[in-house]
C-alpha cells in the first residue's frame, strides 16, 4: 500500500437525503471515500447507519424519494453523481458495477430456469456461444456450492432453498465480470459452512478476474477473513477507516471500540454480553457535535458542541473523534479489546484444523 494506489471510485463530501412525508431525512452526511483498485473494502456499522444507501448511489439505485444533495462520485473519469436517468446508467449498472443484495428473491426471475438466467448473462457479457455459456454457467453453479449443478440447471427458483438462491444471485453477478462488485450482506441468511465457501469463492474469483469489492456485513468474523480495508459507519458518516489490522488491533473511534466489545467471543460464559447503551440519533434532526457523543462513555464537553474532523492516525488510518486531538486526555481502549489477538489465540482450542486420516473425516479444503 506504500506505492501510489489507483482509485477505482472516488467519493467526495457526499450527502444523501430522503424526503419522508414532507420532512427531510439525512441518511448520508459528508462522506468521503476512495476505493482502491482490486481491494476488498468492508463497510460495517449499526443497522440504519447508511451502508446500503451509500453504496446504492454508486449504481444510481436510490429510491425515488432520495437524492444526492451534495458532493461527487467519480468512477474511471465519469462523474456518477451527475447521472440522473436510468438510460445514462446503461453500461455501468450491472456491467461495470454490480450489486448482490441480501434478498435473492427480488433479483431472480421466477419463470425462467436457474441455468438459463446465468447463461443469458454469460452470453451477453462474455460474448460466448450458447453451449459455451451453459458450460460456464454449470461451472459457476458448481463453484458456488450447488450440488449436482448439471442436473439442477433446468430447475426454477422456487425449487431452490433460500441459501441456494443466494448462491445463484452471486453466480450471476460474477458472470458479468464486473469491475466493482458490491456485496450487501450477501451471506447473512446462509449457514456458516455455505458462508465460508462463498467467501472463499469471492476471494478466489477476485484474484482471477481482478475486480474490486465492497462488502457490507454485520459480522466482524466475516470482515476479518475477507477485508483488506474497513470503513466503519455511524449515523450517516464514516467515523473510522483503516486497514483490516488497524481497525481490529488499533481501533481509535469509541464506536469501533463498542462494536468490537460486543463480540460474543469476548463475553464470559454465564456473564453479560456488552451492548451499546442508548439509541442512535434521529436522522431528521441536525446533529450537533459528535453524533456518537450521547452513547459514548468517553465523551468530552467538546463532543456535544463541535463536530470532530477526520484525524490522521497513519497514511492508511483515519478516525473522526476528538479523542485524537492533541489536547484531549489520553484514553486507552477498553480492556476487553486490548490484546485482541492474544485473546483469540488462547481461544484456539478446537482441534478442527488437525486433519485425521480416518474414513468419514473432514477433508481439508485450503
Amino acid at each position: 500500500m506504500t506505492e501510489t494506489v489507483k482509485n477505482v471510485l472516488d467519493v467526495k463530501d457526499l450527502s444523501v437525503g430522503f424526503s419522508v412525508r414532507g420532512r427531510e431525512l439525512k441518511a448520508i452526511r459528508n462522506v468521503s471515500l476512495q476505493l482502491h483498485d482490486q481491494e476488498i473494502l468492508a463497510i460495517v456499522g449499526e443497522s440504519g447507519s447508511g451502508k446500503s444507501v451509500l453504496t446504492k448511489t454508486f449504481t444510481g439505485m436510490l429510491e425515488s424519494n432520495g437524492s444526492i444533495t451534495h458532493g461527487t462520485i467519480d468512477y474511471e473519469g465519469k462523474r456518477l453523481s451527475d447521472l440522473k436517468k436510468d438510460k445514462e446508467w446503461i453500461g455501468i449498472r450491472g456491467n461495470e458495477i454490480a450489486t448482490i443484495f441480501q434478498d435473492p428473491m427480488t433479483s431472480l426471475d421466477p419463470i425462467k430456469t436457474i441455468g438459463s438466467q446465468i447463461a443469458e448473462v454469460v452470453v451477453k457479457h462474455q460474448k460466448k456461444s450458447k453451449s459455451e455459456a451453459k458450460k460456464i454457467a454449470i461451472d459457476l453453479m458448481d463453484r458456488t456450492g450447488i450440488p449436482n449443478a448439471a442436473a439442477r440447471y433446468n430447475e426454477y427458483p422456487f425449487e431452490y432453498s433460500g441459501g441456494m438462491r443466494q448462491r445463484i444471485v452471486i453466480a450471476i453477478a460474477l458472470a458479468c465480470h464486473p469491475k466493482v462488485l458490491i456485496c450487501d450482506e450477501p451471506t447473512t441468511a446462509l449457514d456458516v459452512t455455505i458462508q465460508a465457501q462463498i467467501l472463499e469463492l469471492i476471494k478466489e474469483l477476485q484474484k482471477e478476474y481482478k475486480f474490486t469489492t465492497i462488502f457490507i456485513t454485520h459480522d466482524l468474523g466475516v470482515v476479518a477473513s475477507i477485508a483488506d480495508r474497513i470503513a466503519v459507519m455511524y449515523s450517516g458518516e464514516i467515523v473510522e477507516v483503516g486497514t483490516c489490522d488497524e481497525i481490529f488491533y488499533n481501533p481509535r473511534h469509541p464506536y469501533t471500540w463498542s462494536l468490537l466489545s460486543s463480540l460474543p467471543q469476548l463475553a464470559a460464559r454465564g456473564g453479560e454480553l456488552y451492548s451499546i447503551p442508548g439509541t442512535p440519533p434521529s436522522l431528521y434532526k441536525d446533529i450537533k457535535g459528535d453524533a456518537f457523543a450521547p452513547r459514548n462513555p468517553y465523551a468530552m464537553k467538546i463532543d456535544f458542541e463541535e463536530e470532530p474532523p477526520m484525524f490522521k492516525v497513519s497514511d492508511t488510518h483515519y478516525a473522526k473523534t476528538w479523542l485524537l486531538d492533541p489536547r484531549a486526555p489520553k484514553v486507552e481502549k477498553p480492556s476487553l479489546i486490548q490484546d485482541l489477538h492474544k485473546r483469540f489465540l488462547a481461544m484456539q482450542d478446537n482441534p478442527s484444523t488437525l486433519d485425521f486420516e480416518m474414513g468419514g473425516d473432514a477433508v481439508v479444503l485450503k
Partner: protein
Amino acid sequence: MSSNKDVLLSLKDLEISFGEGKDKFVAVKDVNFDIYRGETFALVGESGSGKTTIGRSILGITPTSKGDIIFNGHKINSNKLNSEEKRDVSRKIQMIFQDPQASLNERATVDYIISEGLINFHLFKNEKDRLDKVTNMIESVGLLPEHLYRYPHEFSGGQRQRIGIARALIMEPELIVADEPISALDVSIRAQVLNLLKKFQRDDNLTYLFIAHDLSVVRFISDRIAVIHNGQILELAETEELFTNPLHPYTKALLSAVPIPDPELARQKKLLVYDMSAHHYETDKPKFVEIKPGHFVWANGEEEAYYHDILQEMHKKETEQK
C-alpha cells in the same frame, strides 16, 4: 445451572415425515435427547437440516410419524390428550419464531398481540390485572408502555423480536423454543436480546431450546449443544466439551467454518468440508453412542473405536500439559 438434572423434555426415537407414499420425505429421524430443567439446549446445523421442524413438533404444530415427545413425564405427541392436557401443554411450551416479520399479526396492536395468550387462557382477574401484566412485560423486554398501542410494522427488527419474546414470556412457560431469535439483528441489538433471555432464565428457571447457526453466539449462551445434519443428530455434548473435543467430521467442518474475528488467525484458517460418502455404514451400522459421559456421537463400531483413541490421545496431551 442444571445441577439437579431434572429432565423436562425428552425426545425418543423421533421421526417426522412429510407427504405420503412415494412422495414421503423423512425430514427428521432417530432423534434422541433430553433437555434438563433450567438449561439452554442448542440445536445447530445447516439450513434445511430439520431444526425448525423439531421445534414445531414439540409445540404440536407439526405431527410426528414415530417416537415420543415426553414433557414433564407425559407423552404429548399423541392424539389421545384430552383438551385439558392440550391446553396445559400449549401454555407451558412457547415458541419465539424464526421470522419476526412473518409471525406477528400486522393488523393487531402490540397490546393485543402480547395479551392474546392471556385472553385465550383466561389468565387474568380483570381488565386492570391484564393491563398491569402486559405493561410489566413490555417494560421488562425494554420497550415502553406507549408502544402498546402501535402496530408491528412501526418497529425495527430488534423491537419486533422483543415483542415476540414478550408474547411468549407472558404465558409463564416452562420451555421456550427459540428459533433463530437473533440472526436478523445487528450486533448491539443482538447483545440486548441475548442478555434479556439470560435474565429471564435466571429469574424464572426457564428452559430454552435454542436454534441457531451462529456458533459464536451458541457457545456463549448454551449449556449443551446438539449438532444436526440431514435430519439426524450427529453429536451432542456439553458446550465446552463439544468445542474442545469435537469428534464427528461434520461437527469439525461446522466449527472450522465459524469465522474468527481476528485478521491474523482468519488468514491462517483452514476450512474443512464434510464428505458424507466417506462413512462405511453398509454392514457396520451406526447408532447414537455415549462415547464419554454426556458426550454422544453417531458412529458405527469402527468409528467408535477410533473416536475412543482420539479422546484418549487428547486426554494424554491435557495431562502432559499440566
